[in-house]
Every structure is written in C-alpha cells, then in structure tokens.
C-alpha cells in the first residue's frame, strides 16, 4: 500500500472515532444547569436586584471555577445564569417567569417584591403532579419577597427568607426584658406597601404578646416626603417604643421629623428590609440607635468572606436579602447533585420536577449565619441577630444563635 493510501485509510478509520470522542466530550461539556435570577433591576427598588445579581454572579463563578456541579452520573455541568428584571411589578414578574418557563431554564431565584411573588406563585401548579392543574411546573426559590406565608400558595414555590413573626416576637420579648419600664408602643407604617403593612401587623402582635400596650398605628405612603402630622401624634402619645414598618426612604424622613420635633422614644425598631446600607446612606445620623432583627450580618467567617468578595469583586452589598441568593445557590447545587438532574436539553421538564422534589426534601442546610431549618410549608427558619445602627453602620446588638 502506498504511503498516501495508508494515510487516507487511517484518516477514514480514525476520524469517526475522534469525532465520536470529541462529540462525547462536547456533550458532557454542554450539560449545563440553567438558573435564572428574577428581581427588580429598574425602578426605585433596583438596589435589591443589583445586590441579588452580584451575589448570584459571585456564587456561580465560585462553583464554576472548581468545575461546576457534579451530576449523579459523574459528569460535571457548569451553571449558566441570567438575571431578568421584574420591576417590582406583578404583571412583569408573571410575564418573565412564563418566558423563562417556556425556555430551558430549570429553576428561578426571586422575585424581589412580595406583591410580585404572591400573584406569581398563583400561576404555578398548586399541587405538584396534579394532572388536572395546568399551572406552570417551574420551581421558584425566593430570596427576597418576605411577606409571611407565601410559599404555601404552590408546591412549586420555595422561599429562603427570614420568618419575621419569629424574629419580632423574640425582639419585643427581649426589649421587655431589657427595658422593664417601657410600657407602650406606637407603630408607623408605609401603608401602601405589602411588606410594610404585613410587618406593622407583625410588630403589633409581637408587642402585645410581649406585654406592651400598643397605642396605635400612624400611616403614610411609600413616596411621602413630610411626616409632621404622624410624628406629631407620636409626640403627643409619648410611646416608650416606636416601630417603623417602612422602607429606607420614608423611614429616614420619619426619623428626621422625630428629631425635629424632639420625639425620643426609649427604643426605635425598624423594618427587616431597612437593615441595609441604603438606610445608612439615606438617614445618616438620624438612624442612630435603631434596632432591626436581620437574617444577615457578617458575624461568621463565611459570611465575612462572602460579603467582602461581593463588595470588592462584584460591586454589590450582601444584606439579609442578597445573602439568601448565596444560600439558595448552595442548596440548589446540593439538590442537583443528589436528585439525578441530567442537565440535558431533552430533560428540562423532568429536571425541573427533580429540583422541585429535591427542594421539598431538604430539611436543613448550612446558611451563612448557621443552620437553616426548612419547614413543611417550604419556608425557612433562619438564624438571626438584632442589629443596631451605630456610627453609621450596622453593629450586632444581640446574637441569639
């Protein structure tokens, strides 16, 4: 056989083998776990989305840097992410989740706002596997929307948000112990925001349960700028404790007006969502002394590391909401590794179901502040601390862990 013929024959024989090997490797490489972040990237709550995206990017980059997720058959899959804007608008949120579900995304982390989460969970299949229910079969693992009790709407909805009633019950009980002379509580609430409204009810119930007399609630709106009427009523009632169930913009306005009118309660309590950098930037020294129970503070080595990395490399802030994104990614990694998810284009529907079932079976996981317990209704019971605004930063006042 001539040399040229030998080369040609070898090529013909070897090429399919090489091609087959390459295809097989490529197929393994192509296996991806697609996770979509959904949150507010525009509008006045954009900061939530920015921080959640930064944390999502950090968590997935770390996992991908060490080879991605190890699937049950031994192959590895990279995490692919996107982050979609729901603008804190229910219609927008439903629209983006429908689009993601029509594509090959396996699971979503989000949304930001409770007023989006509530109707959004309503379009999911209520009971997993119910053939008579045509609702979306798409797992959602919420990081931010915090209004209590939402995950029970659908068996496809999961949340890893702090349980506010537990935290505020504990806080008011603790305040009663530390301030036995304090008798009365008054609450200021941003009445047109779902989370604030729900939180005001939680604060009131917690205060009553701890033995305080609740003198009433003063209401304002999310974009109000002047609070003299409401604060004037605080001034006249002279409550020992004032709770402010409002987001940073109006919280800052209210505490500023309190200072102006000389309203000085023994204790000032804030909304969980205000235990953020935003409050420090907006309120300045007027926030000094405010106490807020929060599901995140850089008090463990891992929490410190994550907060530092996200701040330095991803230009975001880790707070009680965005910290949950990091935890959710770790939980999803564990679920994908143990539940037989294949990560192929042909197995999207079954992979979604496996992720849902896997999430439902998680009873406990390691969070940034410690062990997080999962409840039967797909919510988390998270460790928390009481943070206090001191010297324009949040310091840990009490750590009950």
């Amino acid at each position, binding site marked *: 056989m001539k040399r040229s013929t030998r080369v040609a024959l070898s090529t013909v024989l070897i090429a399919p083998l090489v091609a087959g090997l390459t295809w097989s490797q490529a197929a393994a490489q192509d296996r991806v776990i697609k996770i979509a972040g959904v949150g507010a990237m525009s*509008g006045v709550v*954009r900061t939530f989305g920015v921080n959640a995206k930064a944390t999502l990017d950090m968590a997935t980059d770390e996992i991908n840097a060490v080879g991605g997720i190890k699937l049950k058959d031994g192959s590895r899959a990279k995490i692919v992410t996107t982050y979609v804007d729901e603008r804190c608008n229910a219609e927008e949120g439903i629209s983006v989740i429908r689009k993601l579900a029509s594509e090959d995304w396996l699971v979503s982390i989000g949304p930001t706002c409770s007023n989006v989460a509530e109707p959004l969970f309503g379009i999911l299949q209520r009971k997993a596997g119910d053939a008579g229910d045509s609702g979306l079969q798409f797992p959602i693992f919420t990081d931010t929307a915090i209004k209590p009790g939402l995950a029970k709407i659908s068996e496809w909805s999961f949340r890893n948000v702090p349980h506010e009633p537990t935290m505020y019950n504990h806080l008011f009980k603790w305040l009663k112990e530390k301030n036995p002379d304090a008798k009365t509580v008054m609450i200021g609430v941003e009445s047109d925001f779902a989370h604030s409204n729900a939180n005001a009810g939680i604060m009131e119930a917690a205060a009553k349960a701890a033995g305080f007399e609740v003198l009433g609630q003063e*209401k304002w709106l999310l974009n109000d700028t002047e609070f*003299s009427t409401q604060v004037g009523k605080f001034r006249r009632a002279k409550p020992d404790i004032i709770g402010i169930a409002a987001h940073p*913009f109006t919280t800052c306005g209210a505490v500023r007006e309190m200072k102006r009118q000389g309203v000085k309660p023994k204790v000032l309590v804030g909304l969980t969502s205000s235990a953020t950098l935003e409050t420090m*930037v907006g309120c300045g020294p007027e926030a000094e002394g405010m106490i807020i129970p929060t599901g995140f503070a850089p008090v463990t080595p891992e929490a410190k590391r994550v907060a530092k990395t996200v701040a330095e490399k991803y230009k975001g802030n880790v707070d009680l909401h965005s910290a949950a994104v990091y935890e959710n990614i770790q939980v999803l990694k564990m679920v994908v590794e143990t539940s037989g998810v294949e990560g192929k284009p042909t197995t999207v529907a079954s992979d979604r179901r496996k992720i849902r079932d896997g999430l439902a079976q998680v009873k406990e996981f390691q969070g940034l502040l410690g062990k997080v317990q999962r409840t039967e209704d797909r919510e988390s019971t998270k460790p928390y601390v009481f943070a206090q605004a001191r010297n324009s930063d949040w310091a840990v006042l009490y750590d009950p862990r």
Partner: protein
Amino acid sequence: MSDLVLDVVQQALNGFLFGSSYALIGIGFTMIFGVMEKLNLAFGVTALGGAYAALLVFRLTHGPFLLVFLASVVAAGLIGLVVEVTCFRWMPRDYPLAALMATVGMLFFVEEIIVHATNGMPLAFPAPLGQLMFDVGPWLFRGDLGFMFLVSLGVMGGLWLLVYRTRLGLATRAVSQQPVAAQLCGIGLRRVNAAVFVLTGMVGGVAGALIGSAVGNLSPLLALPLTVKGLVTAVLGGLGSIPGAIVAGLLLGVVEYQALYFFGIGYRDMVTYLLLFAFLVFRPGGLFGSRAR
C-alpha cells in the same frame, strides 16, 4: 385651648409652609403652558434632575449650600433646555399630543437614568436648615419650610419683574398672547421658547434644591409626586397664572394637611383629587385663570 384647635392650627401652618413646594413646582408648569399652551410633564423630573446634579457637585466639592443651590439652578436650567429641544422643538407642531407624550417619555427616561445612577437608593441631601424649629406659642414652625416659603415669594417677585419689566418678558408675553403677530414683529419664537424653558428649569432647580433640603433625601420616588402635585397646583391656580400657582400651592398644602389629620392617609389624596374635580367642573379656569381658556 383644646387639642383639636391646637392641631388644626398646626396642620394649617404646616400645610401652608409645605404648600410652597407645590407652588414652586406649579409655577414651572403654569409658565410653560402660559407661553406655549402646552403641558410639560417632564417639569417635575427637571427639578429633581437639577437637585441630583447639585448633589453630585456637593459630593465632589463638599462646598457650601449656596454652591449646591446654584448648581441645582444651573443644571435644571440646562435640563429644561434639553426638554424644550427634544420634546417640543423636534416634535411636529400640528400634532399636539406628540409633545405631551414626549414629555411623559422624558419624565420616565430621566427618572430611570437617576435609578440606574443611584440604584434607586435614597441619598442624603444637604439640609442646612433641616433641624431648625421655632416655637410660636404652642405651635412648631419649621425653619426650612419657612425659608422655602420666602424663596417662593422671592421667585414670584423675580418672575414678575422679569415678565413685566424686561424685553424678554415683553417678548414672552407677546408670544403667549399672539405668537404669529409676535413673529411678524421680529420676535424669535424658538429663542423665546428656549428662554422660557431655561427660566422655568431654573425655577425647578430652586424647587428641587429646596425640596431636597426639606426632605433631607433625594429619591427617584419623588419624580411622580412632584409631577402630579405640580400639575394639580397649576390647574387649580389657573394654567398660565403665576400668582394662581402660588395661591393654589399653598391652598393645596393646607387642604392636604387637614384631610390627613381628619380623615387619615387613605383619604388625603382623594380629597385632593375631589378638589381638582370640583374646580374643573365649577371653575375650569382655576383661581386666577380665565374661565374658558
């Protein structure tokens, strides 16, 4: 004196003073309408944009409030000019809705720029008079709102001088009353329109800086309320009437504060819009405008 009387008077005082912020915004709406017979719904965000630009200057220089104030006035004047060019000059004149919708677009465009630049976070705005309070008998009097009231009176006086004592004012009135005749007399319509937008933008800058200072924070959340309250003020006062805007702004402030006190937050804005509705039905020309415009 009973608590009720004390509270009602305190509410009236607070409303009256806070109403000066509505008056300043209302002046901008009313002046542009007076000259062009068109609504500029981007005026509120022009004021806010000026205040944000001033905050940027403050952060870069840590200069005195006067510098912040002037920066707001200049920046808002420039934004006003951009609004005039993009939303009015470039729009087809035979389709009035185009300009109106362009200003709506500009409102949300500028608001979203602010959101993207700040991530929507409220930012502390310098407030040199922020904690100044006076005891007037049993009542409290906010120093910063009092200052805002005085400034709005000053702005009104300045505008009156400008409109009735300068050549630009004469040209503006001519364009406002007889645009074609004014052009035939050699008055440049574009130049007058641009001057009015710069001027009202500067008034917006005054309002933005003072409102930012009174609130103590800037947030994109302010864009829509400034627009709505400014528009309501201008309509109540009579579109085109500067004194009308001042009186209506103060009236609106008093009505809102009394409604808040007596009916609660859920009804405050309902009372405002009922008042607007009543004016539109019974006195469509507003307090100082002509009845049939």
